[in-house]
């Protein structure tokens, strides 16, 4: 396997020692089939053990290794060095406070995720014990793409509205809420819309679509948010005309 010398410009920040973040360069001998995450692991194991970053599965499932690679929000396990120039700049995800080096604070999004009630809500009786809620294949395909989200938060780093105002609920959480809203087994849509079609909810999205462009799992949060706007507008009329929640 051929090798390639790469220069990694990594953003470093230790809140206990540094006044502000700075860049540190590492020269890394990379194998051709490496992803950026492999190069970071090489740095951690061989050059600088103090480098902090998150990762776990190395197979696009856990969603922990989201970072800015040359300014683009990316899952570093999926960003291969063969697609990149010899010099690569790696920064923590935009729009989030930095905890240390490449690790960001995700508390805001985690709190919003809880608000969105991303689980099936039923109002009527559950099915008998030995049965399940059945669902047609067509009904499954309606929301299946949204189940692919791994909460890597690349979409939040790309979202210009979240950058302007972090009270906006944001793409991934809204897409996950929509996933349950359009699940044929779910009955919690009106409950969720009360929260997510509120002032800081779907309406703050101006449909730039950057979230869908950067999503490493090919989820389309922008579409979900637009569909939720239609649902929200319908629900608003329903509540006004029907005199309450449907």
């Amino acid at each position, binding site marked *: 396997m051929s090798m390639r010398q790469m220069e990694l410009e990594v953003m470093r920040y230790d809140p206990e020692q540094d006044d502000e973040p700075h860049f540190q360069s590492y020269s890394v001998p990379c194998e051709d089939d490496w992803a950026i995450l492999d190069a970071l692991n090489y740095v951690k194991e061989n050059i600088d053990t103090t480098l902090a970053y998150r990762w776990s599965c190395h197979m696009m499932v856990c969603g922990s290794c989201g970072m800015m690679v040359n300014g683009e929000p990316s899952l570093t396990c999926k960003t291969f060095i063969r697609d990149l120039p010899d010099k690569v700049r790696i920064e923590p995800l935009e729009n989030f406070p930095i905890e240390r080096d490449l690790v960001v604070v995700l508390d805001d999004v985690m709190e919003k995720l809880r608000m969105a009630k991303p689980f099936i809500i039923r109002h009527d009786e559950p099915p008998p014990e030995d049965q399940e809620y059945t669902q047609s294949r067509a009904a499954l395909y309606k929301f299946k793409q949204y189940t692919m989200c791994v909460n890597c938060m690349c979409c939040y780093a790309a979202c210009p509205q979240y950058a*302007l105002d972090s009270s906006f609920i944001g793409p991934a959480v809204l897409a996950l809420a929509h996933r349950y809203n359009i699940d044929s087994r779910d009955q919690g849509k009106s409950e969720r*819309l009360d929260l997510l*079609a509120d002032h800081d909810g779907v*309406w703050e999205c101006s449909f730039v679509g950057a979230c869908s462009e950067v999503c490493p799992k090919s989820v389309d949060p922008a579409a979900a948010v637009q569909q939720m706007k239609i649902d*929200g507008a319908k629900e608003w*009329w329903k509540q006004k005309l029907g005199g309450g929640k449907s």
Partner: protein
Amino acid sequence: MAIAKKAFVWGLFAAGGTVTAFVFPVLIALFLIVALGIVPEGLRFENIYAFATNWVGKTALFIVISLSLWHAAHRLRVVFHDFGVRMDNAVANAVYLVALIGTVLTAFYLYKI
């Protein structure tokens, strides 16, 4: 919490967006042709006037003009937000007021034809 009033204006914005996307390019092309001196039979004054005196015509004109105004108003509000103007309430009131006045005037003038 409840569904924000933005749901209502977004509905007008979305409807207006659909109308403007389909109708405006055609209108612009047609009136450019007229401005260049080529006036098709259907766009002659008497025919346009007849269209605007008819209730079906009036309704169509009202829908196109008023929804376009609401679309433009909401789009402008978002543009202000994107440019970092942090006075959403003031901006919203101003742009929607213009759209509302435009809507009322449209109804008034169409009624008078």
